[in-house]
């Protein structure tokens, strides 16, 4: 199963993860 998030955010939004990284519920994915 997979979850796709699609969202609008300001230009200065940055992802805080890398491709292939394991994540857990509540872990930061990105921030402004």
């Amino acid at each position, binding site marked *: *199963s997979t*979850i*796709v*998030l699609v*969202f609008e955010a300001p230009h200065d*939004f940055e992802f805080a993860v890398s491709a292939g990284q394991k994540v857990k519920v*509540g872990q*930061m994915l990105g921030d402004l």
Partner: protein
Amino acid sequence: LVEAWQNTPTKWYPLPVAAGALLLIVIQYRRKSTAREVVVDEHGHEVVKLKGPWHVHVIGALPLRNLSRVWGYVNSLELPVWFRPIGFRIYAAAFGCNLDEIDPPDLTQYASLGEFFYRKLKDGARPIADAVLVSPADGRVLHFGVIKDGRIEQVKGSTYSLDALLGVARPDSPAPTPVHFPEHEMSEVDHRHFAEINGIEYSLHELLGTPTPSSSGTSTPVVQSSPAHSEDAAHTGTAAKRSGERIDASVPRDQSIPETVAQDVSMATEVGIRPTAVRRDSFTSVRTKPGNNTYFIVIYLAPGDYHRFHSPAAWVVERRRHFVGDLFSVSPWMAKRLENLFVLNERVALLGRWKHGFFSMVPVGATNVGSIKINFDQTLRTNVGKRRDHPVGTFTEAVYSGASPVLNGQPLMKGDEMGGFCLG
């Protein structure tokens, strides 16, 4: 033949440079024209077809939905109590589950593998980070980035359409005609009729639960139906199986609306959304505001992962679109080989908004986990019905406007449990 094969000398000579260049141009042109070729149906929705190497077509010919249901049935069978701890420990060791964080910790209390798969976690097992966007699930980040020209990159060099993923009509196509019931018809929110409480504006008509006057002849009707109708439509698929048809699957509107307003206004403050931004029919296209980008991120849940999902941000879910589709595996192996994988598979697109604009979350099913549950939507039934009755690209839509009169949707705080994936 053997003699010719062994004794014929190989003579290499260069092709003319112009011929080589011409060949490259032709290859590039064909690649580009294939990538840009988009077929749309009469509603303006992109028609997506199975594309990939031969083994993908072989997998596509299998009865994946039936296999998924059989898999779900087998895994719902009750296991003998003595076997449960042994069986679940073997499963946990094979797939890397952490048994220390499950709730309840007593393995004999999980009657079947299906129950164990949909296990809960202990309170506090997943702290929520102080960031605007957090992970909705345990899993692995497959891909992320900025959406350009309405295309989401699946893997390097392969993209799929955002419009097809969310069921949005292409801008150059006529909008679908919504099917509605005149006796329940409501008009689009009139932006001129708003009041303000504690610095937050809200619609007077939403507050009072009265029909709104039409605004300058551009209103779009919104369907509101009784819960019984919603259930029928969702279960049988006869009343709302074509794209553009809508039902209201949210909690019936409370008659004592003023009592709920304070809660809604409080929630609006926490979510950070000004209710004046509400437009009832805002998802005929996704437009990015100036100064913003549209981003995407894909998270893959492996079989051993915790399979419930939580809200990744503070947002309001205004509607869901259930796309009946195939149930291919969504493993990274398949994602590399099957184009449009996430558009072909059965999925539930939850559409709404957060303080920065548009927000959506799309749980995509797979062969082993075809069932998707949404906690605040009891009418949703996935992995039922026949695939041939639901052409790719069509969906059943439900609106959650009754869940919160002020916010016009189901408000969710960061980390709230939203639902999950079940076996089969």
